[in-house]
């Protein structure tokens, strides 16, 4: 493992560029449209899971309502592009900002709350968003949803084909990774991680935990909104049931399986979950059973996820240490 890591660190830039190049040619190599569609889904959910990971994995807040922010982004895109014909590329940041505002609204009352209360409020908020989307007919089309969302412009390519839409997802995903990587390595990212590790200690060092927690929430919601905005034209038709709590749990399962608190984890999780649920489609409901069993197995055997080293409180709070003296290495969750 450490050899791989050493190799990675040595040739980091080249490796990443190679991966990026491979991803760029992928839709031309894989000719089957269905597979390209899967690839799009993987990228989409990788970014969505990444946005949830930015909240759950880095500031240690337990958000269960990512589907809500996702829905906000999708609906903002759908409504503005069908009603007012606003350009898709303009809508990306707008959706993000809308979602971030809602994220702030959710975060503000939950700042004083801890752990499970926060989770339930986010879950409730996501349900409320879904119900409103389902019932507010004049704006969201109610249960009928919104149809015929215009495809975005991308250098004149036919973006209604997954082959080309793929690049929009790729662009967003890469942008997300770059930006998040930079944020995490800055003062802001350190503040988030310190909150995850020990909130009281963070406070005693002058980190305004309330501010950074809401900032973190808004950041995660922003990207969920952006992804939602990219999602709406891709499926061309959105309605409220696409954003149920099950979607939220799905995304959660991705970061759990992949590994919270790492940038790689959500990508791995998205790949595994998408490949699994798509390739086992013939099993019908049984695939969800398998999926659920995998989540439970993950929790039993490797709670930090596949990519997660035990480098975080999320790993179960155990740290391998050579000397015998062991203090309870636990968070105050």
């Amino acid at each position, binding site marked *: 493992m450490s050899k791989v890591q050493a190799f990675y660190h040595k040739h980091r830039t080249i490796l990443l560029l190679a991966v990026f190049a491979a991803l760029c040619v992928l839709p031309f190599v894989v000719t089957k449209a269905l597979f390209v569609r899967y690839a799009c889904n993987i990228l989409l959910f990788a970014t969505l899971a990444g946005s949830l990971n930015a909240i759950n994995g880095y500031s240690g807040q*337990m958000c269960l309502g990512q589907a809500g922010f996702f829905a906000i982004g999708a609906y903002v895109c759908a409504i503005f592009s069908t009603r007012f014909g606003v350009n898709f590329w303009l809508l990306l940041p707008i959706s993000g900002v809308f979602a971030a505002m809602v994220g702030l609204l959710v975060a503000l*009352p*939950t700042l*004083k*709350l*801890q*752990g*499970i*209360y926060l*989770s*339930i*409020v986010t*879950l*409730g*908020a996501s*349900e*409320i968003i879904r*119900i*409103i989307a*389902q*019932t507010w007919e004049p704006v969201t089309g109610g249960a009928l949803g919104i149809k015929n969302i215009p495809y975005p412009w991308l250098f004149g390519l036919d973006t209604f084909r997954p082959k080309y839409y793929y690049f929009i997802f790729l662009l967003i995903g890469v942008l997300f990774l770059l930006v998040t990587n930079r944020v995490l390595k800055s003062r802001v990212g350190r503040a988030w991680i310190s909150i995850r590790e020990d909130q009281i200690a963070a406070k005693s060092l002058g980190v305004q935990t309330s501010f950074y927690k809401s900032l973190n929430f808004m950041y995660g919601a922003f990207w969920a909104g952006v992804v939602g905005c990219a999602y709406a034209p891709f499926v061309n038709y959105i309605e409220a049931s696409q954003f149920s*709590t099950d979607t939220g*749990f799905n995304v*959660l*399962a991705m970061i*759990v399986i992949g590994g919270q608190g790492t940038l790689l984890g959500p990508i791995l999780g998205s790949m595994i979950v998408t490949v699994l649920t798509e390739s086992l489609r013939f099993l019908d*409901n*049984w695939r*969800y*059973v398998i*999926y*659920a*069993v995998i*989540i*439970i197995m993950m*929790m*039993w055997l490797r*709670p930090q996820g596949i990519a997660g080293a035990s480098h975080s*409180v*999320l790993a*179960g*709070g155990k740290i391998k240490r050579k000397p015998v003296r062991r203090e309870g290495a*636990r*968070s105050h*969750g």
Partner: protein
Amino acid sequence: MEYLLNQLVNGICQGSIYALMAIGYSVIVGVVGMVTFTYGEIMMIGAFGAFYSFQFFGNNLALAIVMAFASSFLLGIVVYKVCYERFFNAPRHIALLCTIGFSMLMKNLVQIVFGPEQKPMINIINNATYTLRLGSVAVDFKLLQIVVMLLVILFAVSLTLFFNRTRWGVALRAVSQNKQAAYMMGINVKRTAMLGNCIGCGFGGIAGILLSIYYYTVSSTIWGNFSMKAFSASVLGGLVDLRLSALGGLCMGIIENLGITISSATFRDVFSFAFLIVILVIRPQGFAAKKGSRV
């Protein structure tokens, strides 16, 4: 006015079922010390247990309730073994995610085994309606509602007696208050926690059958929301206090039903969740006097 009063009666009845749910949930949270997202599925199993009891053993309400309790109780053992036992010393989110996984598992297994369609629940209590006249306003009570409320009161009282009068009940309370101290006193904490979890689940099962009788249907899909409502109601009660949780459940039932009178029935869940959020903002500890930081 008349409509409002009738809705109030509906609210109280529904609220009393929520109260039972919340009581079960509080027992689980109190004794095990961790929250669960499987509760809805446990209720569902209770409802299905009752459904098949009606189908095979005839229209016997008492037997159906026993069946519901038993099936949920047994499922409680599985939940405990899968989701809690290993994770007492781990961060809380691990057990939480485990219950989410388990809830997914149960939901899909039930859909596979019992079919995804809604099944009509037998109309066990006849549709008699009594009208109470208060001056010019008439308030309707269905027999069903009266029976449901009486049953809820019966179970709540018997659980209280169990907790206060029996050896097991006292052990459960001890474990709920301080696991370490209970362990020192020679209580088998793990077994007691399992018992507590199972009792909480059993009450969830009873709430499940009451709900399905109340709505005349059993389905395998709608339970996730009830899980959240049970949680919300027990949050209102400070998560571990049974009486206050029951009060929270009652309030939620009333708020929901009054809320949908001023808007449409689709907003039912919006009212309960919005109410929860408002309560959490104003008073994070719910109705409880002190902040409970145990969970």
